[in-house]
C-alpha cells in the first residue's frame, strides 16, 4: 500500500485544482459557482480520507468490533455539506439578481456595461 499512501491526497488536489481552474478561467457566473462546488466536494473527500483507518469500520458501536474509523472528520463534513449548500444557494440567488440587473451572466459583458456608465 505504500505506493498508494498519498494517492488519495493527490487526486483530491487534482480535483481541487479543476474546480479552481473553472472558477478563474470561466467567464460565466453559473459555471464559476459549479467550480466552487467542485472544489468544496473535493475538500470533503480530503477530510473523509484523513478519517479512514485501514481495517477500521463505520463508527456505529457494535459488539465484537474493536477498530472504528475516526468519527470526528465525519461530523465536521456533515456540517460543511449543509453550510456549502446554503452558500451555493446564496451565490445562485446573486447570479439571478445580476441577470435581472445586467441581462447577462458573462463576466466581461458586465464589466463593459459598468465602464460605459
Amino acid at each position, binding site marked *: *500500500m*505504500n505506493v*498508494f*499512501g*498519498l494517492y488519495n*491526497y*493527490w*487526486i483530491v488536489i*487534482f480535483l*481541487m*485544482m*479543476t474546480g*479552481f481552474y473553472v472558477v*478563474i*478561467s*470561466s*467567464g*460565466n*457566473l*453559473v*459555471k464559476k459557482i*459549479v467550480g466552487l*462546488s*467542485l472544489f468544496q*466536494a473535493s475538500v*470533503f*473527500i480530503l477530510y*473523509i480520507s*484523513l*478519517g479512514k*483507518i*485501514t*481495517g477500521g469500520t*463505520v*463508527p*456505529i*458501536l*457494535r459488539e465484537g468490533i474493536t477498530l472504528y*474509523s475516526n*468519527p*470526528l*472528520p*465525519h461530523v465536521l463534513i*456533515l*456540517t460543511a*455539506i*449543509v*453550510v*456549502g*449548500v*446554503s*452558500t*451555493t*444557494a446564496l451565490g*445562485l*440567488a*446573486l*447570479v*439571478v439578481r445580476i*441577470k435581472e440587473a445586467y441581462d447577462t451572466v458573462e463576466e466581461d459583458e458586465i464589466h463593459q456595461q459598468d465602464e460605459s456608465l
Partner: protein
Amino acid sequence: MVEAVNIVLLGLLVITAVAAIRLHDLFAVVMMFGIYSLLAATVFVVLDAVDVAFTEAAVGVGISTILMLTTLGLVGRWERRPVHRPFLPLLVVVVTGAALIYGTLDMPHFGDPDAPVHQHVAPRYLEQSPDEIGIPNVVTGVLASYRGYDTLGELTVIFTAGVGVLALLGIRRRRQDEATRER
C-alpha cells in the same frame, strides 16, 4: 479490496471533473456536477462515512443540482466561448497544485492508524460516548452533543443564507407584482 474500489472511484471523479471543465453547455456541466457529487457519496461509503454519504447524496446531489438547474432556467443554458487564452489560469492552477502536493509529502499515509488525527479526541469519543450519551452512532452523538455549538453555528449560517436569498429574490418580486397590479 477497499483500496482498489477507492482508486477506481477517484479515477471516475477525475474524469467527471475534467468533463465539467471542457463542456460549454451549462446543463451538461450541472449534470456532471451531480454525477461528481454522487461519486463522492460512494467514496464516502467506501471510506466508512455513511452519515456523510447520505447527506451528500440527499443535499449535495439533490438540492444543489435542483438549485443550479432552476438558476439555469432563469439565466440561460449556454456559456459563451472564452475570448482570452487559458494560459494564465492554467499556470496559477499548476503552481498552486504543485505547492499543495509538496505539502502532502510529509503527511501520514492513507489509512495509517498511528496518524496524529486519530490520537486526540476521537478515541475518547469512541470510548466514552456509549456511557455519556448512550446512542450507538458516534457521529450523531458528537454532532448533537459534544459539538452541539458547531451545529448551532451551522443553523445560524443556514438562517443567514435563507434571509439573504429572500432579500435578493423574494421580497423584491412581491413588490414588482404589486407595482404591476397598480398599473
